[in-house]
């Protein structure tokens, strides 16, 4: 699904990622953990194709295709989804209109006819139920005046609507209380299938109580310093990131 080989990334000439290797297969859930400033969000941006990102070495392959130079919208239409750490407000644009536009772009890309209004409504209601979203939220402007929890829930809702092959959830748990986190995690779990894959970027272990990863990677100072099974998350929870710092210095 996703293969990252020796990826070096800089932003404004400052090197943030210093040689990342990652292999994600269909059906897998990977968790990427690490302290603040370790490059987690930069990795997500690099995969999604944000243009402030400058890939200096290495490559990202999505289903065998090199993503370098591909526009973010094309990546999205090919099945890549990024759940934003800070979802953006778009005043005056209803979530319904926004989602319909997005879905039709995807369909156009696949050579399908635009979705009909009734099909769309049916599909939307289904997905709203799946992620436990309030009915009226869809009629409001995208993320405008949403609470932190509503914004995150909205990301999962959009993911459910777009049915991506690979979803990257960037700090989806931050700012969520336990109940909201359960709903968000429930949504992710329901969408899990042997055909798709998920990368969860998180600072804390607690989300991983609800979404059990197949692999956990620890990112520190732009490098993956450890990869292991789900037990690594618990170890991190127990020891914090301090022990890593020592290891990290050695690596550097």
């Amino acid at each position: 699904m996703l293969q990252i080989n020796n990826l070096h990334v800089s932003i404004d000439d400052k090197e943030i990622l210093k040689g990342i290797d990652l292999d994600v297969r269909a059906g897998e859930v990977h968790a990427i953990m690490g302290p603040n400033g370790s490059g987690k969000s930069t990795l997500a941006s690099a995969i999604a194709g944000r243009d402030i990102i400058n890939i200096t070495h290495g490559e990202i392959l999505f289903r065998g295709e090199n993503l370098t130079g591909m526009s973010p919208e094309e990546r999205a239409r090919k099945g890549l989804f990024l759940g934003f750490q800070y979802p953006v407000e778009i005043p005056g644009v209803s979530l319904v209109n926004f989602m319909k536009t997005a879905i039709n772009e995807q369909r156009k890309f696949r050579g399908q006819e635009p979705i009909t209004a009734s099909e769309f409504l049916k599909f939307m209601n289904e997905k709203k139920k799946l992620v436990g979203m309030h009915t009226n939220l869809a009629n409001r402007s995208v993320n405008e005046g949403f609470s932190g929890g509503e914004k995150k829930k909205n990301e999962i809702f959009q993911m459910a609507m777009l049915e991506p092959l690979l979803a990257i959830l960037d700090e989806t748990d931050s700012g969520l209380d336990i109940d909201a986190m359960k709903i968000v995690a429930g949504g992710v779990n329901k969408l899990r299938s042997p055909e798709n894959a998920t990368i969860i970027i998180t600072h804390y272990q607690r989300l991983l109580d609800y979404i059990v990863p197949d692999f956990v990677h620890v990112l520190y100072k732009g490098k993956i310093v450890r990869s292991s099974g789900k037990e690594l998350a618990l170890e991190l929870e127990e020891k914090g990131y301090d022990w890593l710092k020592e290891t990290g210095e050695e690596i550097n």
Partner: protein
Amino acid sequence: MEKSQDKILSDYTQSDYKFGFVTDIDTDSFAKGLNEDVVRHISEIKQEPAFMLEFRLKSYRHWLTMKMPAWAHLRIPEIDYQNIIYYSAPRQRAKLAGLDQVDPELLRTFERLGIPLEEQKILSGVAVDAVIDSVSVKTTFKETLAELGVIFCSMSEAIREYPDLVKKHLGSVVPYTDNFFATLNSAVFSDGSFCYIPKGVRCPMELSTYFRINAANTGQFERTLLVADDDSYVSYLEGCTAPQRDENQLHAAVVEIVAMDNAEVKYSTVQNWYPGDRNGKGGIYNFVTKRGICKGDNSKISWTQVETGSAITWKYPSCILRGDNTTGEFYSVAITNNYQQADTGTKMIHLGKNSRSTIISKGISAGFGQNSFRSLVKVGKKAVNVRNFTQCDSLLMGDKCGAHTFPYIEVENDTAILEHEATTSKIGEDQIFYCNQRGIDTENAIGLIVNGYAKEVLNKLPMEFAVEAQKLLQISLEGSVG
């Protein structure tokens, strides 16, 4: 960030003006220049009654004493008023009895503009008066409207057929001395639309005037007069386009609205004059005076404008709220892209008791565009319990454009409650990336964002035209991301 903004900007600043074609039709035109004989000649061609010639001549004489206003936040190159043709008309054989006698080339022009003049093809329930260069070529649905007593015809015809109505109201809202451009218009206006809604009639269809400048070096000076008698209602739409030419062309129109007791007039404009090319060459100078008076009690005038065209726009659709319990509204979206300049806004003059007004302005600046919002809310001594709400939002795209606001308030009665809200925002790269990540490309993302921003105003447009206006917004901004 900066680098990528510039890149996106330079990638897309080319926008195409799809109405830029020229129609090859025979025209009767005057020689360039303006003097008393030209004014007399226009009046003569139109076979006008003496009072009209009088009106024109005193306007012309007054105009000679005036100077072009310089207070607007605009850079207007010097205009040589002797280098303009003041009258140009598509040549027609004798008088038109029916549509089959209209030059087929002319009909095709309006077809291309999406304004079919054949009644059976017309958008359901919209009557159209089509004005090309200086004269009205065709008014549709006239008979249907006549059954209700609604008069909807060209101004020339109104002057001939309904001189009393014209004499009573013409210049009553915008006097011939009003301002440089209105005075010029009063002297040389060649046509326009006239509309009278009799007492108690709700006009069953949208009335629409479509203005088109075709001939080169021609100024277009049309005059619209709309009178809504007691307890009547009318919704009126005005659209405009012009060919793509390298030289600038002058458009100086006057619109007057009179609303009597309990009357309601909704006036919507989708202004899409040629804006000039992306280097700022060519384009229409749009210097327009629009004003309505809520003369009778409980009357209401509502202006909605979507301004996307013109090289320079100078325009302030205003309301004089003279009656008690009257309502004035102004909803505006104005876009300036490339080198366009706009100084637009409104005046709300509260004279009646309990009169209220709403001003919602959404400015969008892109490229090197300069967008100014100017408003005056005035409350007279005797106007008690006046309410006004003003909201003025500016949206900037890129870092080379400008947004300016000039709100004026003059209150002489301390029972008035006035509110003013203003915001300035920028289309963020994060908003665009968010859309991109959902599979929406940058062009469509801007379309979504801008239409969302302008929604409050677009919602006020008659439905038939709201969709068109939405598309227009997107086209006008094609590529001006930041």
